[in-house]
């Protein structure tokens, strides 16, 4: 492996040398997003896509986000990287509030600098690439935007191609000449072009064949180790999320319902929705191990236009109680570092928790105005 051209790697050298910063790299605090919709000639409504979502991601870790389609996981990704303006709440990246009250959409020079450190890999490797630009042009484009010299652009493009396992000659190819796996490698190379600290992978391997999917997962893991990257890894595939993530956040209808270390979440799911999700996942049964005895989830996802009162999952929950319709469940911590929003787990002395701080440590929880 060659060393990256030193002049262009801004965040890279620092992050690999520096000890983990004392604060999480990314904090998402009570972020909400509503999309206005027309229900009739005079009637307006709003789809609550993400509702008071909170979590934090430590430097060099992977935060996995799982949930069914329509649970708001992709919206959450877009809110974090600033592709959508945030309605309420804060996204704090490296201790800096990304969202300034006057500029909900990140456009200024400061935002440009922040977004240099946050990049995204999209689901469909084909539509995410400009069909009329060569691979070299695609990868160099973010560097062009950020004013890199041509020489730097060329050198770094070559280095990036090598990093993602492509040949230098691939720079002159066009997207249609590449296979799906190769295209996703180009997407990853482009996301890494500005040496970001955080890479948001939104269903990055979902469109790939299984044999190629493993290649790309291995590549993402290798890059994380070599470049000290932090990932937000979004997928509907629970097995892939478990393999990739240190911490997993389960979302249902715009809200985080459970957040925990990946190992513990899969071994001991607490929220009824998480249990149902795990029980529904098809398992390649070679060992003959017994399947968890959880009935499949009945009913349909309620409309986000008019989410159920109280707990949003109560309409499909096998253990719903009277209180579930009345008040939204508070976040509790039934075991260290394992947080869940469900009335089955009554709030103990540690009331007023958020989903934000999941790790077991003595770090103070910060207010959103910090």
């Amino acid at each position: 492996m060659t060393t990256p051209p030193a002049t262009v790697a801004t965040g890279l050298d620092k992050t690999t040398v520096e000890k983990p910063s004392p604060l999480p790299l990314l904090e998402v605090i009570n972020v909400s997003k509503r999309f206005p919709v027309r229900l009739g000639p005079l009637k307006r409504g709003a789809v609550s896509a993400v509702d008071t979502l909170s979590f934090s991601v430590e430097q060099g870790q992977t935060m996995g986000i799982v949930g069914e389609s329509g649970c708001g996981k992709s919206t959450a990704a877009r809110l974090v990287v600033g592709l959508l303006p945030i309605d309420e709440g804060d996204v704090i990246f490296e201790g800096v509030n990304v969202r300034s009250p006057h500029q909900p959409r990140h456009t200024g020079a400061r935002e440009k600098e922040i977004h240099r450190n946050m990049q995204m890999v999209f689901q469909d490797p084909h539509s995410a690439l400009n069909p009329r630009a060569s691979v070299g042009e695609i990868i160099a484009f973010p560097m062009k935007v950020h004013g890199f010299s041509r020489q730097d652009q060329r050198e770094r493009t070559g280095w990036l191609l090598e990093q993602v396992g492509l040949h230098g000659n691939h720079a002159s190819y066009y997207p249609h000449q590449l296979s799906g796996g190769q295209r996703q490698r180009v997407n990853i190379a482009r996301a890494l072009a500005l040496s970001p600290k955080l890479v948001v992978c939104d269903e990055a391997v979902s469109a790939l064949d299984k044999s190629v999917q493993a290649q790309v997962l291995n590549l993402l893991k290798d890059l994380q180790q070599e470049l000290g990257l932090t990932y937000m890894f979004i997928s509907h595939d629970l097995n892939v999320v478990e393999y990739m993530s240190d911490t997993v956040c389960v979302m249902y209808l715009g809200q985080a319902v459970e957040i925990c270390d990946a190992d513990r979440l899969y071994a001991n799911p607490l929220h009824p929705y998480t249990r149902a999700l795990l029980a529904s996942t098809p398992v390649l049964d070679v060992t003959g191990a017994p399947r968890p005895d959880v009935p499949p989830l009945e009913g349909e996802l309620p409309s986000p236009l008019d989410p159920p009162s109280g707990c949003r999952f109560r309409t499909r929950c096998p253990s719903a109680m009277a209180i579930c319709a009345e008040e939204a469940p508070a976040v509790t911590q039934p075991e260290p570092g394992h947080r869940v929003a469900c009335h089955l787990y009554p709030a103990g002395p540690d009331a007023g928790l958020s989903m934000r701080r999941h790790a077991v440590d003595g770090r103070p929880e910060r207010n959103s105005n910090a």
Partner: protein
Amino acid sequence: MLMTAPRPTVARISPAPCTDDTPLLAVRDLTTQFPTRHGWLTAVNHISYELQAGRVLGVLGESGSGKSAMLRTILGLQPKSTRIAGEVLLDGRDLISMSAAEREDMRGASVSMVFQDPMTALDPVFTVEQQLVETIRRHSTLSRTEAAARALELLQTVQIPSPERRLKAYPFELSGGMRQRVVIAIALVSNPRLLLADEPTTALDVTVQARVLDLFRDLKHRMGMGIIFVTHDLAVAAEIADDIAVMYAGRIVEFGSLDDIVRSPQHPYTRGLLEANIRPGQHERPEAIPGSPPNLAKLPPGCSFAPRCHVAEAACWEAVPAATTVAPGHGVRCLKAAVSVETVVR
């Protein structure tokens, strides 16, 4: 080594034939070729198998392996320019050689298909009832009201909650899982004996997928239907299939019972797929298959998996391996399979 590669004998990879009855579906040496600028592209390459009624054949393959092309060929949905050879015997009648009119009568009556994307399979401007009634009346002499009653019955069969209300709904008013149930209901209109399902759960969430898979299992048991279930996901195939055919570059490279394929895979590609699949609780790196599937218009002369195979030797590049039987009902197209068996036994 061989100077002129012997023309590969097209041995049939199929389960041990049942003695008591003829198979519901027998595919013999089926080949489908599409014209392209670079010559004929062979999407389905000398495929043979048999399916008994009441069984589910899982066809496993990646995109471009020819699994969808095979289903469309069976149903006669390929464009006129396509070159098709071989036989598809449904209850002893050849679907390939019959006239277009005859085939149209078979389609929907004896054999029907469920497509991957439930949104595009339904017409957005007609209600569920209109679409069901149209199909019912096409295949029967029922009156409009009788057809409507039958439509309701079908929605009940596919376990749609409050079916009376759903009949009046347009596709956009239904969720993805509900739409796929409607598509399945339309496929069931005339109690087909053979159901072709092309990735029917791929576009669905896992919780919905689990219930649609339950529905397929139910159809198999209750109606004794033969089902060909095409998927790229081995775990999904393992949930539903009795037998599995693994397709690669248009050929069936391995065929066997679910147990054979999952517990003693013989073809390096099948093994690769098993290893690339992330299992629950997995921490070690998945063993990825290097490279990508070959261009079907420019297939290598030998085994099409040879360029990605870690055990390939010179002979693999020369001729397409013939199908060999490693155990009753378990066939494989791999020169190294015999060797592999020994290593497994040891």
